[in-house]
């Protein structure tokens, strides 16, 4: 269970694993494998293997912390089940939750980046400026360039802080968008809702739909 065995598959000095632990302990943001590789003088894939073994070793030993890969690097974090204790310590640790509008806009930016505000507007059907400002001020999105076309619209993309907020390593780790396309039942419901009456359809004799239009 100890780190000495963590790097067992590769003949790496146990001290290297301890050095890895030391660097990760002082890091204030996720440490990319490339940087660890420079610091430890080992090939990136060896370092990545060491990190994974170490993470597994912590998991098996049953610690209150874990080593995870987030936002393009490795970092120590507390395990979710001990959140109540951690929150008792971090008095100022209340974390603002994102509104539905913010989450939907983030979803669009994450999958379609780089994307302009008008492209976002046409997907959501609402003016996105307020939400974009909020997301930018919280550091989850940023301007990543300008559209080369006429108008040179500002293009938006997600940031490492977004990846940390969701606890994922990269936007490439997100499931393909195809997995979220609504099922046949939803498509059918929409088709019914928007059906085009055939020309010989009888006009509803008493359009008293008002009563049902409400709820």
């Amino acid at each position: 269970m100890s780190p000495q065995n963590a790097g067992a598959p590769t003949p790496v000095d146990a001290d290297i694993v301890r050095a890895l632990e030391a660097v990760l302990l002082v890091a204030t943001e996720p440490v990319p494998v490339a940087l660890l590789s420079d610091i430890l003088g080992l090939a990136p894939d060896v370092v990545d293997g060491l990190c994974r073994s170490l993470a597994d070793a912590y998991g098996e030993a049953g610690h209150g912390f874990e080593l995870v890969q987030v936002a393009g690097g490795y970092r120590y974090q507390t395990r979710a089940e001990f959140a109540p204790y951690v929150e008792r310590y971090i008095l100022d640790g209340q974390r603002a939750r994102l509104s539905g509008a913010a989450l939907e806009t983030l979803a669009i930016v994450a999958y379609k980046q780089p994307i302009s505000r008008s492209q976002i507007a046409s997907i959501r059907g609402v003016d996105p400026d307020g939400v974009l400002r909020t997301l930018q001020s919280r550091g989850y999105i940023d301007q990543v360039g300008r559209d080369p076309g006429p108008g040179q619209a500002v293009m938006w993309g997600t940031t490492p802080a977004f990846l940390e907020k969701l606890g994922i390593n990269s936007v490439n780790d997100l499931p393909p968008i195809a997995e979220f396309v609504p099922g046949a039942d939803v498509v059918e419901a929409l088709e019914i809702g928007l059906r085009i009456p055939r020309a010989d359809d009888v006009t509803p004799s008493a359009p008293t739909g008002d009563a049902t239009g409400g709820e």
Partner: protein
Amino acid sequence: MAVDVSTPVFEGPFDLLLHLILKEQVDIYEVNLSLIVDAYLSEVDKMQSLDLDVATEFLLIAATLVELKARRLLPGREDVDLDEELALWEERDLLLARLLECKTFKDVGRVFGSLADEADRCFARTAGPDERFAELMPDLLEGVRPKHVHAAYVRATTPKPEPKVDLFHVGAIKANVSDALAELVDELPRVRRITFRRLTADLVDRIEIIVRFLALLELFKQGYLEIEQSEKFGDIDIVWIGEERIPVGAIAIDDYEG
């Protein structure tokens, strides 16, 4: 879940349409369409930085909805123009695709919400190197003088000017169906019969015409007028068959109480 789907506050027309069709399972014939069109108009109105493409797109979708609803309100026609029919199907499919895309990202947003909720329960270590390493830390204040700190304070505390909203292209789209309805109820009983072309002759914006048309449909639905078209592509005659004078308040628009 961060998203409360039962909230009666809708975020624009797509949100409202998706709610009505998927949650309430109504078809748009049953819905007071003016509500949805008004939702579109208020979004166009709110556009902070003017975006004609988006505004136009919104209006086209509103027009598609109006056409779909008109189909079900107006008496069935026996002579159907095939091109017209195909165009309507195309527009309908476009709207359907839009709603599907919007729904897709709504669902992704919900998944993001759960991921964020889960991630929020894990706290990263951020203590950094301890004091033994202090002298190694680069001096980030190198070159910073008291006046720079002062300038930064002024920057941070100066209220940001409100962005100027430039809406002159859109004009004042203040049209809404209730207002149009009030105008018609005032005007139609006096003239009894008028063509739709004349009724909308003084209107410049396409959207105002759409709104007035919606108001007519509402009156038609409530039995205050008849709509006649003697020949294809001919003028549409509006005939008032209601009372001579009715108080404006008597015509209730079916309010949406979602």
